[in-house]
């Protein structure tokens, strides 16, 4: 257990642990998903909150668990306020788009850029909401900095991504994450990220290169096929290799995510407190394959149900003869809609379990904190902010 502030013994790294059980989390998200269905989706605010409460309260740093103090109704109010703001913006957006279309068909496409920037702003504000609801040892985290200043940084760096075929990605990620951490505080203890784009590039450059290869090989193979009268062996080899690499993509993605997490978490600093993270590169591979496997299963089940439904409907129409109007009965439409919603809900559950909880669990367990004494007597600071940012993010999510 942690020593009082007066201790001068150089402490061993303090443990960061995750004590949540997979079964508990699964029950939580399945129940929430069912409730989402029953409530026209409105339960999502409480499900999101319960998910965070579970993850936070089962994450212990030096023996003391985090606490998430946000509430579902804050998210609901944030969403409603965001709608009041977004409604007129969408209207203006629509009118500007109309004016732009008049000048040239499809000229309004660049306006999507504005909405993307707005989305970045919302993401920053949403992070601020989450941080101010995160409490450890009776002191909350919080955040300064302006959402717009984050948004234009994100946009400018984003412009570099396409011309550099993704090469700018590590530096963009580093710049944005450093911006966020630099404006993050725990009480009066300022945070920062001691990690650079060069370091991230050093960890993932070969994955980036391998990730490009299948597309290059596929394209190469196709081109070779087009120009040769009979497909030369080289083209076939290229296509086969490309296919093999395509199968390897989930592995590569999992490794990249793991290395990125380790890079990010290992760079977190609060005052003299240092986080280390020795997440192994292969530790997320199982998670992503489980996600792929279960998703495939869900899709298969959905296809079977939809196929069966269609067969029943078509059979039913034939019985009524060709003269009758080929009308899909209302119950048929409802059955399609319900099975479609169930598909969405099932995929949502899988995403929450595998891309959220399992990843969280593995990353947290791989972390440790050095010099936790640096946070032994931090004065509380920071004000709560409203759920407006989360509402905006939610609103922009379905809007476009």
């Amino acid at each position, binding site marked *: 257990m*942690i020593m*009082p*502030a007066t201790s001068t013994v150089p402490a061993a790294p303090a443990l960061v642990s995750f*004590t949540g059980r997979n079964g508990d989390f699964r029950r939580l998200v399945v129940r929430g998903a069912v*409730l*989402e*269905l*029953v*409530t*026209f*989706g*409105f339960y*999502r605010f*409480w499900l999101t909150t319960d998910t965070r409460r579970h993850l*936070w*309260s*089962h994450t*212990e740093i030096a023996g*003391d*668990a985090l*606490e998430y*103090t946000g*509430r*579902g109704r804050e998210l609901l109010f944030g969403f409603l306020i965001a*709608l009041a703001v977004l*409604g007129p913006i969408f209207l203006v957006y629509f009118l500007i*788009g*109309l004016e732009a*279309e*008049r000048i040239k*068909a*499809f000229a309004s496409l660049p306006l999507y850029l504005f909405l993307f920037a707005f989305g970045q702003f919302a993401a920053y504000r949403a992070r601020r909401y989450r941080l101010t609801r995160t*409490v450890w*040892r*009776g*002191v909350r985290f919080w955040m300064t900095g302006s959402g717009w200043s984050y948004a234009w940084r994100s946009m400018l760096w984003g412009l570099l991504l396409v011309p550099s075929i993704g090469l700018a990605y590590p530096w963009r990620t580093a710049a944005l994450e450093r911006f966020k951490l630099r404006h993050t505080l*725990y009480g009066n203890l300022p945070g920062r990220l001691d990690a650079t784009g060069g370091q991230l590039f050093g960890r993932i450059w070969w994955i980036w290169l391998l990730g490009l290869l299948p597309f290059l090989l596929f394209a190469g193979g196709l081109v070779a096929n087009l120009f040769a009268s009979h497909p030369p062996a080289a083209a076939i080899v290229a296509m086969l290799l490309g296919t093999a690499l395509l199968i390897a993509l989930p592995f590569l993605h999992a490794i990249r995510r793991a290395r990125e997490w380790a890079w990010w978490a290992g760079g977190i600093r609060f005052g003299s407190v240092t986080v280390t993270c020795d997440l192994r590169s292969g530790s997320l591979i199982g998670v992503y394959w489980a996600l792929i496997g279960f998703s495939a299963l869900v899709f298969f089940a959905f296809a079977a149900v939809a196929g069966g439904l269609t067969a029943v409907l078509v059979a039913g129409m034939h019985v009524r003869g*060709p003269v009758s*109007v*080929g*009308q*899909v009965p*209302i119950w048929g*439409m409802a059955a399609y*809609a319900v099975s*479609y*919603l169930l*598909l*969405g*809900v099932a*995929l*949502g559950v899988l995403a929450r379990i595998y891309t959220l909880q399992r990843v969280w669990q593995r990353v947290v367990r791989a972390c440790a904190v050095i010099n936790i004494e640096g*946070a032994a*007597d*931090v*004065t*509380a600071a920071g004000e709560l902010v409203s759920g407006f940012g989360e509402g905006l993010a*939610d609103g922009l999510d*379905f*809007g476009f």
Partner: protein
Amino acid sequence: MEAAVFFDGLSSRRRVVRLSFADRLEIFGVEAPDGAPLASWPYDAVRRVDGPANALRVSCTTAPPLARLELRDPSARADILRLCPALDGPGGAGTVSVWRIAVASLAAGVAIIAMAWFGMPLLANQLAEMMPYSWEKPLGEAVDGQVRTLLAGHACESPPGIAALKKLVGQLQGVADLPIAPDPVVLQSGVPNAFALPGGRIYVLSTLLTVSQTPDELAGVLAHEFGHVTHRDGLRRVIRDGGTSFLIGLMFGDVTGAGAVLMAGRMVLSAAYSRADEERADAFAVSVMHRLGRPAAPLGSLLHRIIGSADDMVSSVLHDHPLMADRKARLEAEDIPPTGPALLDASEWQSLKHICNR
């Protein structure tokens, strides 16, 4: 093992404490057990908050909001559970009533659907009445650009064909008296169709001319589109669809994949609206044709020739137009024998049919 740990909510100091259960809950630091208590909490102000599985974590409504007491020792935990009457009262992290959320959501959902179903058409009608016709122009021009790009067909402009088209439209406009001058254009396309945009632009796709057998058939279609222009159906549809999708999007937010269900819902809704629109446009066409002394039934025959057989295969719930059989029957019921002169003579009709030939 530490029996209890206390955080005062003002700093992150971690204090191992000893509890005294007097008339209030008193919290003493173990380092200075005889000094003044670090905090003294009334039992009825103690609330349960989220904590780790192996501890009971409580806050106090009269203390700083983030002050926390963590009880790891089972006997102390039992004491707190026994002594604090409002552990899950307001201000704590008690569970929310799922029933309340469900009932409120249901009410909100019903209200939103009712607004989409009844409110939006009403609103669209009112707004469309209020907007001057001149405002439709930019809307139409915006859509026009996209239509031209999507159809990619060039406009057919053989001079005799244009003259015949102008004559036909002029006669229709003579009795229809549209507030916006109709602006018909024939586009090269393999789809037999015609449609009106906001602002008076009417597109006739060339295959419709090929399929039409008499000037009355084509005139009926044009008169039907005139009906949409005069009723401002395009404008109302834009307002209605925009508003409905906004309202319905409100509900499902992030239920992944709900988008397609929304689309289906919108299609059913807007199909229901536009059936009424089509019936009104048909009625308008009938009255225009009658005032010209021409029959209305040819419109029905033409439509039946184009979509009649296909109609049985398509879900009628989703289909934009009223059931073909109903429409045809209605047009035939209102038919009159021709009393007025033919709208185009044989050579004009041939020029119009071959407007796309250079």
